[in-house]
């Protein structure tokens, strides 16, 4: 094996998504030289097909095995399956894993939903005896959420909602107006005591720095070339580059952490340069892994210092354990009273203007529910762009068919559950004992089983939707399946977290409250792998916030020459 060694940097960051790009931004601003390694290719946000028509794409942009979320989706060389880069699920398990081999990773196409975790979310064990507490509290995190949200740009507002904290004054952007389906659901919600409130999303409502305010067109998942919908390729990465301190290496498939001769400190990482196939070493005083929950744990488990079979930073045995994803299910409904309603441009900021935050904490706490943790509901549909796959429910032909289309357009929308999962012993990842990818790197093997906490939560969601739809005179058009069939496949919601959880002691966690490995003093993790629980709130804003906080901590330690 021929190894070439890259020039040493102060910090080596693996990954360019939310956790990696924030670390690179904070540390280059602090004066450190940073080498960022990204397994995917480079990306120019100006290539985003923002106003292109689905009509101009093959198959009208329909999803295919090549581009599962559609032709224009900003996922490149990725998706559920990457040729030559398999993963496996253990017998009896099914877990699916979305990867994006592109600079900026999955931040190029995420939904931009940015709900802060609240006080209950950081101390779930204290509250109900399940899972574990985080080693940080909401109070410690609040100022970091403010700083992060102010930098990122998040719309929303500040209401008095249990466990859904306010931002400090001046942080949030004015949210866009509710659209008709959202106003309609709110009327039903108001009657039932279910809150329907402005959502929070990382989409600019005013120009900031180099980025432009949203112009209310183009699905955010295509990538946002004007920088309105937050992604690291229009913000943190160019800003880090502007310091002159960032070196970016794309096509770098990292496979292990390199240890110093003393066996105690990390000295860098080893990677395969995909362009040449050469094995290379990248050296740094500090190593930060932010390659995603699955990849970060895979790198640690594939690093065998002194032949130790359990992998690196795994004295607790927790690397790969505690794998969590968001609980997902959905129901669509049809509202006859909305037939033929006046048409207008309902695209708006594309994603949520309104949502339903979890409202039933009192009953959960009183033990009156059959599940333990909350969920939120998302509302989607209305006068959207017609899609090639959206015309299954019609009858007949000719002019009568044309009338059916006009009548039904905008009278149908759906409800989506996004819920908290409690970590359980059946959900984890490990290294497949046999299979290797095309680079020769042993692949991840996943184990997955939902518990009754999640299944019963689905029932609560279904009942709540039934009540709402009924109040509004609609009918549920999807089959209401048993929770075990209605619930998403593990990994499907693409919120996988927890494989290297943080904790208060080295005994039962992989990293401390600053994302520092308990076992290796100069090894940090800044991605979703460090989550100790998986609140129903979408994880990206918390990944960004933790990465900012913990990267400031790293900078401080570097200034003090502790590392």
């Amino acid at each position, binding site marked *: 094996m021929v190894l070439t060694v890259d020039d040493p940097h102060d910090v080596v960051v693996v990954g360019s998504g939310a956790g990696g790009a924030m670390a690179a931004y904070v540390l280059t601003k602090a004066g450190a030289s940073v080498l960022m390694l990204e397994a995917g290719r480079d990306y120019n946000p100006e290539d985003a097909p923002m106003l292109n028509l689905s009509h*101009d794409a093959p198959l009208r942009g329909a999803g295919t095995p*090549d581009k599962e979320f559609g032709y224009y989706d900003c996922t490149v060389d990725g998706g559920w399956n990457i040729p030559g880069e398999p993963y496996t699920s253990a017998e009896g398990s099914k877990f699916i894993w979305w990867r994006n081999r592109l600079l900026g990773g999955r931040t190029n196409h995420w939904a931009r939903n940015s709900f802060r975790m609240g006080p209950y979310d950081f101390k779930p064990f204290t509250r109900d005896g399940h899972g574990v507490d985080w080693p940080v509290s909401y109070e410690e995190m609040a100022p970091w959420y403010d700083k992060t949200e102010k930098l990122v740009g998040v719309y929303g507002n500040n209401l008095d909602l249990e466990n859904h904290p306010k931002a400090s004054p001046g942080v949030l952007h004015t*949210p866009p107006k509710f659209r008709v389906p959202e106003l309609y659901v709110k009327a039903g919600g108001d009657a039932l005591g279910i809150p329907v409130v402005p959502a929070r999303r990382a989409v600019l409502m005013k120009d900031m720095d180099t980025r432009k305010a949203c112009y209310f067109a183009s699905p955010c998942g295509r990538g946002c070339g004007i920088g309105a919908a937050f992604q690291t390729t229009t913000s943190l990465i160019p800003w880090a580059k502007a310091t002159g301190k960032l070196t970016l290496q794309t096509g770098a498939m990292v496979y292990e952490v390199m240890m110093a001769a003393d066996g105690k400190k990390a000295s860098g990482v080893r990677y395969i340069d995909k362009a040449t196939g050469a094995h290379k070493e990248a050296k740094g005083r500090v190593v930060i892994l932010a390659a995603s929950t699955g990849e970060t744990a895979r790198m640690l488990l594939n690093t065998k210092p002194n032949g130790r079979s359990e992998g690196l930073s795994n004295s607790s045995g927790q690397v790969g354990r505690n794998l969590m994803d968001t609980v997902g299910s959905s129901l669509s409904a049809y509202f006859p009273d909305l037939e033929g309603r006046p048409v207008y441009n309902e695209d708006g900021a594309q994603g949520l203007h309104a949502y339903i935050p979890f409202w039933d904490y009192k009953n959960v706490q009183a033990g009156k529910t059959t599940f333990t943790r909350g969920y939120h509901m998302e509302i989607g549909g209305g006068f959207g762009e017609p899609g090639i796959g959206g015309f299954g429910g019609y009858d007949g032909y000719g002019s009568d068919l044309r009338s059916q289309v006009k009548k039904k357009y905008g009278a149908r929308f759906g409800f989506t559950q996004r819920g908290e999962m409690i970590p359980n012993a059946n959900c984890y990842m490990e290294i497949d004992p046999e299979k290797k990818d095309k680079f020769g790197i042993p692949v991840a093997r996943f184990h997955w089983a939902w518990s009754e906490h999640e299944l019963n939560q689905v029932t609560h969601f279904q009942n709540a939707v039934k009540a709402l739809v009924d109040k509004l005179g609609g009918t549920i058009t999807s089959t209401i399946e048993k929770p075990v069939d209605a619930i998403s496949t593990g990994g499907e919601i693409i919120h996988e977290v927890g494989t290297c959880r943080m904790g208060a002691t080295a005994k039962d966690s992989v990293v401390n409250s600053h994302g520092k490995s308990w076992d290796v003093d100069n090894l940090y993790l800044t991605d979703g792998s460090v989550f100790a629980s998986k609140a129903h709130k979408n994880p990206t804003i918390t990944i960004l916030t933790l990465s900012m906080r913990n990267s400031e901590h790293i900078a401080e330690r570097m200034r003090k020459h502790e590392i």
Partner: protein
Amino acid sequence: MTDSNTPVLIQLDRRMTLRWIAASIAAGQLAACGEKFGAKDDWLAPAPLTGNGYGKDPNLQEPVVPWPLTMTKAELAATAALADLILPADGDAPSASKVGVPAFINEWVSAPYPDQQEQRALIIPGLAWLDKEAAKRGGQTFAQLKLDDQKKIADDIAFKDKVKPGYEQPAKFFARMRALTMGAYYTTPEGWKVIGYPGNTPVASGPYPGPTPEALAHIKNVIEGKGLKMNPVENGPL
């Protein structure tokens, strides 16, 4: 008659940004195959297509359909006639074939992806069935039947509660063609116009305007008609 090789059809379908590769060669090559697997035996699935899709990193600004188009002249003719029966011209609204739906269906059933291949296995024999049924009812092909006679066939298979006994498979085929025709039609700029979708158009400046006064008045009326209230959206301090 419709023919995949005539430039006029391709022009009608799409602005020239989406390019088709080797369409004429493939249509010729596969004609025999279509007859072998389609025309003789109803509902015998055609030979599956193999070949490459557009890959995991296609050019998004200049899209190309890399797979050969495979429908025969006869299949395209039946497709056009059926698509126009499903969505005929109506006032200012153009017919399905006028906005290139048949060419799109050719692109769709020729795609080497599992979903499209599964549908191909229903659609290609279905098109052959249409012509056979037309012959049975005194015509030559479906496309050559008079409109009223085409409708008589459609009436046996187009209504889910009134499918003629023994015609279940053709009804399944019709439902698929209807969904595909409608999807293809309403994703064109002309189709958007018909339903009024004005979107994927940037708002010139300022915040999102929200529903029009007319749309707001309408929903308020609906909400109050249900005995509910349209309360203002709570806007806490920023």
